[in-house]
């Protein structure tokens, strides 16, 4: 409806690209250092977007949910031998979802910043939990854990291309589900609660239940993303992989990419990953190593801060909305509106 091409064609083109072209075009560095983290961060962004962009509940606890997913998946996989890897991931997602619903409970009384603070509370509690209780890291003194090899139904996914396939498959399925949700009654309820919760309540939408669903589903996505981050991208991890900074990173992804847009989560993640790389390339090309990594990371911080402010001011709906605007413009060219 919104575009000239039916969604099916778009989707299939995308799949062809991701399945056929990318693995053929990309080398190992791209696969394991960019594409895999890109897909995983997109998934986390998608999760946060469902909660913040669609249901309008700002959260800075994303990293906590990711950590919960990762550690749950790890413990299931390592303590219950014989449990399929995907089941472990799912368990990670479910554990995160439970925590999410719990974190969302205060939204019964409180909104806005106050809710932000609740998610912060969860963030710190989880960081502490996995650090203080070695049990979670299999009594490893440093809290560092080694994940078991990635084998699913006898197939081995331990090389970069395998990583890519595994992550791509999971992300694709979850994106499809997210798309269904967004275009369904639940999606409408999310938007209703976001846009005008009093009116939502008056037309009979169970506001608290809707918010909790948003928290639960969102956290499930973040949990799976966390499990993938730990198992596929890092391979061995400790709680520091999921500190507050990660939460902000994911938040920035959806601010830049586009609140309330599925595509935005992916665009934002790509931007988030590629900008620093581009910057360090430029630095080494022009300044030829004059700036050390530390200074560079400071500049990156500045750039990101500026970008966030810029987007909030100029394009509150992020890169995705710019894309949509262009698309609309093309569809009614040469007219301005119709």
């Amino acid at each position, binding site marked *: 409806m919104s575009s000239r091409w039916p969604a099916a064609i778009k989707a299939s083109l995308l799949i062809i690209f991701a399945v056929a072209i990318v693995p053929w075009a990309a080398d190992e560095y791209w696969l394991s250092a960019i594409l895999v983290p890109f897909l995983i961060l997109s998934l986390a962004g998608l999760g946060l977007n469902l909660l913040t962009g669609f249901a309008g509940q700002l959260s800075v606890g994303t990293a906590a949910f990711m950590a919960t997913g990762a550690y749950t998946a790890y413990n299931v996989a390592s303590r219950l031998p014989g449990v399929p890897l995907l089941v472990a991931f799912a368990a990670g997602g479910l554990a995160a979802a439970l925590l999410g619903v719990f974190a969302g409970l205060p939204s019964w009384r409180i909104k806005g910043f106050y809710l932000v*603070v*609740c998610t*912060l*509370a969860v963030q*710190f509690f989880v*960081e502490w939990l996995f650090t203080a209780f070695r049990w979670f890291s299999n009594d490893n003194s440093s809290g560092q854990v080694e994940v078991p090899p990635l084998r699913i139904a006898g197939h081995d996914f331990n090389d970069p291309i395998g990583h890519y396939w595994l992550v791509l498959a999971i992300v694709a399925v979850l994106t499809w589900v997210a798309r269904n949700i967004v275009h369904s009654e639940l999606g409408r309820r999310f938007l209703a609660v976001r846009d005008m919760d009093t009116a939502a309540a008056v037309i009979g939408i169970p506001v608290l239940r809707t918010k909790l669903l948003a928290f639960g589903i969102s956290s499930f996505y973040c949990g799976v993303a966390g499990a993938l981050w730990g198992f596929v991208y890092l391979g061995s991890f400790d709680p520091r992989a999921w500190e507050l900074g990660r939460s902000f990173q994911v938040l920035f992804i959806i601010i830049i990419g586009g609140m309330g847009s599925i595509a935005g989560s992916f665009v934002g993640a790509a931007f988030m990953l590629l900008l620093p790389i581009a910057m360090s390339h430029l630095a080494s090309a022009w300044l030829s190593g004059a700036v050390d990594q530390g200074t560079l990371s400071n500049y990156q*911080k500045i750039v990101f*801060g500026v970008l966030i*402010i810029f987007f909030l001011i100029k394009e509150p709906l992020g890169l995705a909305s710019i894309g949509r605007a262009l698309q609309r413009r093309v569809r009614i060219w040469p007219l301005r509106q119709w």
Partner: protein
Amino acid sequence: MGYLLETLVGGLLAGIMYSMVAIGFVLIYKASGVFNFAQGAMVLFSALTFVSLIERNVSFGCALIITAAVMVVVAVLAERLVLRFLVNRPPVTLFMATLGLSYVLEGTAQALWGADVHGLDLGIDDVPVSILGLRLSRFDLFASATAAVLVVLLSLFANRTRIGRSLRAVADDPLAALSLGVRLPKIWRWVWTLAGLVGFIAGLLWGSRSGVQFSLTLVVLKAMPVLIIGGFDSIEGAIVGGLIVGASEKLAEVYVGPIVGGGIENWFPYFLAVGLLLVRPAGLFGDRAVVRV
């Protein structure tokens, strides 16, 4: 028993430090409804600037003045380049903008002055003094004295000066104030300046206690539960909140920590705060707005 008391008082005094940061929040929130996540970055920025000046053999007094001036510039820029364009946007958007701002400030501060830890000596050696049988940190006493002076100054400013009065007017009823010809941008520049200076003082105290380094920005996270407990829009709330957080976190650390393996001071205040939220959604001192539909 004496130990308990000492812990308690020690916690209370430490809490004052939290209050110092929280006050910066409250000023901005009261006058502009902005939840300024960048407060922590301002603390770091000011402290780092000050220390670096000192290290470059600038005299103490000059360093103070220059840093203060810098903070004024920061405030003006924040208003000119950020807030001005975000007027009457949803509060959460403004919050995220300050998040961006804090990244800019942190990045700039470290790009300018480097990321390594700087020692800062205000000339108060942190020897324990004993007052009616309680052994207390002199430094904490000094800090709380500073805080007291600061609050007095602020209240004087708010009540005696014209700008202060219009500031209070805006806080009480923005629309009315505007109709009375109060210029919002000016107000915002002022409160951000004030918040910057308060942050500066907090930065000095924190810095001289734990060294001036990146982790200073984290005091913002300490201040968060303080604000929840005290309410975003009440200075006395910030003070009391700070005391409560300081005391409870010390007590918890001493009496609960060992049981669960320590390190709980990071989240314990938050749980305290959230618990309180559910009982009193506007904190102890903030007043609850009636939903208008």
